[in-house]
């Protein structure tokens, strides 16, 4: 898996699926610090202070994350505090992605202006308009990086700084327990019932 001759951006996108271990290994201590930070920050009720984004940038990123995993009758990226996971990531293990975000936000603004000349900011658009803008940029490295970080922030163990109150896990019925007893699911439970009724062995 050589990264030679490829831009950092495309490398990051390429690794979105596998989260290239070697790349992140180099940032391990940052990750640890992010984790320690997170475990301190996520204990209390209030979200932590922003370390990288300005308030304006944060509003844009949060709006994006909110479209990637929207809040409906169940919590989304906002309730999972994905913004804060991303913010911390950009000052720790994903420091090298800062410029992707900074430039990406400029491009987002330009795209917003292009489609909706009268709108001020992406975050000020209606939900339908935001979806239109994101659909236009969904193939860009910037969007894919925000998606990756949002998804990680939504599903990683809460100690890692996202998945606040385990809302990500609740969505998918995962409880984070490391100790389970059979039956595990519907079909094995049914099978056990059936074979018990037959009085037979499994």
């Amino acid at each position, binding site marked *: 898996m050589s990264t030679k001759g490829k831009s950092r951006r495309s490398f990051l996108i390429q690794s979105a699926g596998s989260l290239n271990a*070697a790349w992140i290994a180099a940032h391990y201590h940052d990750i640890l610090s992010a984790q320690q930070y997170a475990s301190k920050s996520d204990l209390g009720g209030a979200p932590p202070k922003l370390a990288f984004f300005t308030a304006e940038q944060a509003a844009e990123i949060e709006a994006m994350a909110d479209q990637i995993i929207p809040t*409906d009758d169940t919590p989304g990226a906002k309730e999972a505090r994905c913004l804060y996971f991303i913010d911390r990531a950009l000052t720790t293990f994903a420091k090298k992605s800062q410029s992707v975000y900074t430039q990406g936000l400029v491009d987002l603004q330009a795209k917003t202006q292009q489609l909706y000349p009268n709108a001020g900011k992406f975050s000020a658009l209606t939900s339908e308009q935001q*979806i239109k803008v994101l659909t236009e940029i969904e193939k860009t490295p910037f969007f894919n990086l925000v998606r990756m970080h949002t998804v990680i922030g939504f599903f990683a163990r809460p100690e890692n700084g996202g998945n606040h109150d385990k809302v990500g896990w609740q969505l*998918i*019925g*995962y409880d984070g327990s490391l100790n389970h007893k059979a039956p595990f699911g*519907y*079909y094995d439970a049914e099978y056990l019932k059936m074979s018990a009724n037959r009085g037979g062995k499994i």
Partner: protein
Amino acid sequence: MKQYKPSQEVDYIIIGSGAAGGIMAKQLSTAGFSVVILEQGGWGKFGREQEYNKDEWLQRNLSDDDRLMSNPQTQRNTYRKTDKEKAVAGNHSYGCVVGGGTVTYGSSSWRHLPYEFHEASYDQTIPSGTGMADWPITYEELEPYYTQAEWETGISGLRVNSPFVAPMSKDYPVPPMPLKSSGALMKTAASKMGLTVVPGPLAIISEDYMGRKACVNCGICSGYGCQVRARSSSAVTVIPVAVKTGRCELRVKSYVREITVDNSGRATGVVYFDAQKREVHQKAKNVILSANGTESARLLLLSKSARFPDGLANSNGVVGKYVMFGNGASASALFEHPLNEYKGVISGAGIVDYVPSDPKRGFYGGGRMTARGYLTPLELGLNGLSPGSARWGVAYKKALREEANHRMTITCFVTQLPLETNRVDLDPDVKDDWGLPAMRITSSAHPDDVKNMEFFRQKSIEVLETAGAKKVWAPKVSESHGGAHNRGSCRMGNDPKTSVVDKFHKAHDVPNLFVVDGSNLVTGGRNHPTMTIQALAFRAAEHIIREAKNGTRRA
């Protein structure tokens, strides 16, 4: 732990501490010999396994100190399909820690079947021109050592009487792991299709055994170290016994670059790089190479000398040839009710009816279909939804909710024909981080292998549909060219012209060098090599000890 000086000639150096190396160390040290194990990886959480991390985010981001697998960025390797191509950067990786691949593997512990030792002689479906050959030993000769391996390491499973499963002289020491929903669905399909489902034999204990606690079904399984020591890895079974004898020293971060020989052609020890990349020459009366099915061949090829200009034990040019990696096929499906596959061990039940090759299918090949694979939350979220699913937005979130826990995957482990042209050698251009020639893998699947994989892909789809799946999909089959199931590159045989080691693992060319690991496998089985490697190791150790004790060889 006992410590030896490099200048002290120990009885045995063992290179590698995995499935075979751990067993060799235990058998030799308990028999009274002095042993030094050289492991290129780190300690892992040896002796404090409860510290293994179960955090999937951190697991993807391990520091070099916490790695459990080799790192292709430093332990560089290259790959090409044929001799005509220039090799490109490869991603071959394998267990690399005290305990080797047994620390993280899915733990499948199938035996080879009796006929897999002499398929070449009798199986009419084998195409001509392949490297299929008979083993120099029979199943009957190896059977007692399978039993020994199962009982000394701790394997859970069910002894069944079936033509598709190897016959056993004794039950497994502990019963099989609980049936999962995937296994129950397989049974549903199998009863309609007339197929046989058996619980997978696993190196994971279902009950407390030999001082270790039973598996708690945590679900963070293959790829992770086991926190409760329920996975019967070398690191929690045989190696602690070896260390406790006071005769076995285990050195980590020890990267061997050469097996040294004297003028008479006997091995005298090894030269390795320690953690600071300083060269150390450890002397020994005998060398046992258990570095895995690719690295053992590479190390022999690296060990060039005036007497062995083409590499050690390679006077016939066979070292590195016939390497096999691990063909497979898979299909996944969604079902109406939750399966919660993330709970419990990764490898569940298996359909075994297609293990034998069948002339009616029109090609050589067989394999096992196993219920295997689940998605952790991050895997599901990042790229785990069924094909065509939305990647963000309301539809993405809906798909997450609907598909989570409703999915099962069938992973098939199938045959691979050994071919002389598939091999491990030294890359002429690329070096690893130690300045040694990188491993170069040349590998192409035989057309029958591809047909076989496609057969299993289709069969997996059929099983899932018959089980009542709502949606089924199956990735295209692709040939393997790296990975932990590597084997075959130092095959055993009676003929010194066509094999690297004899039936007791002794190099034909070097009287005090033994190769004991997956590289010895003449045929790859149905791509579940570990149990056979372990049985071979127990058998090899017994012979090596006997030879030393009766004075045939110095130790």
